[in-house]
């Protein structure tokens, strides 16, 4: 078996395939024409709330809304 034959450059730099794929998708979305661009960016918005836990109890959750360019 070939040992790690020719890895792609992004994997050699420590990036995973998902990160690579998401970067490519973001770049393509940024090159869209106007009405489609705003649709695409709003489609990819993520809203989530994070709460850190200490000593078995959750602290106050923070609400985050990451837009895809982060």
């Amino acid at each position, binding site marked *: 078996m070939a040992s790690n034959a020719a890895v792609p450059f992004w994997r050699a730099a420590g990036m995973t395939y998902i990160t690579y794929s998401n970067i*490519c998708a973001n770049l393509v979305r940024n090159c869209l024409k106007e009405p489609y661009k705003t649709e695409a960016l709003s489609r990819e918005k993520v809203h989530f709330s994070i709460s850190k836990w200490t000593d078995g109890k959750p602290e106050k959750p923070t609400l985050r809304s990451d837009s895809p360019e982060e």
Partner: protein
Amino acid sequence: MLRRASMLLACRPILAARARPFSTDLPAAPSADATFTEAWTKVIPNMDPPKTPLSFMQPRPPTPSSIPSKLTVNFVLPYASELATKEVDMVIVPATTGQMGVLPGHVATIAELKPGVLSVHEGSEMTKYFISSGFVFIHANSFADIIAVEAVPLDRLDVNLVQKGLAEFTSKLSSATTDLEKAEAQIGIDVHSALNSALTG
């Protein structure tokens, strides 16, 4: 005596391999869960067994013995299904190993896609999409599943933004220091030059 033992060991795996042919020749998948229904009727003979997820799914069409005339394509994105079991003549996918043409009867293949143009040929019409990245699974029964993260028809792309992006990432590459930055800049260049050649070519 040791020779007999090693011969027996050698014979076993070969028999097992022959009994299960290449997985590309899988028979049509069953549409009802036989073992579940048997076990159910043994325990509760009066009630009808409930439907399992397997019975809701469409069974895999078997590999026909002669090459079919059309390729059935499922082209899906995370948020929409662009083409669902559409019968076409040919698709050309941008695989990492180059533009790959898929005709009915293509050998079963799994290919990773690079940013590029997917063209679907049906009769005399051709539809092109720019794909950001993804995979294509071609099955032995002439079904092709194309999975992409982002796919846009070419007329939705803005040439000026593409060229601006290309210039920006080329300059980022020359000013990048860490490996990660260089990789990101290189990805930017690859994607934008693919976009550029899709729009101009």
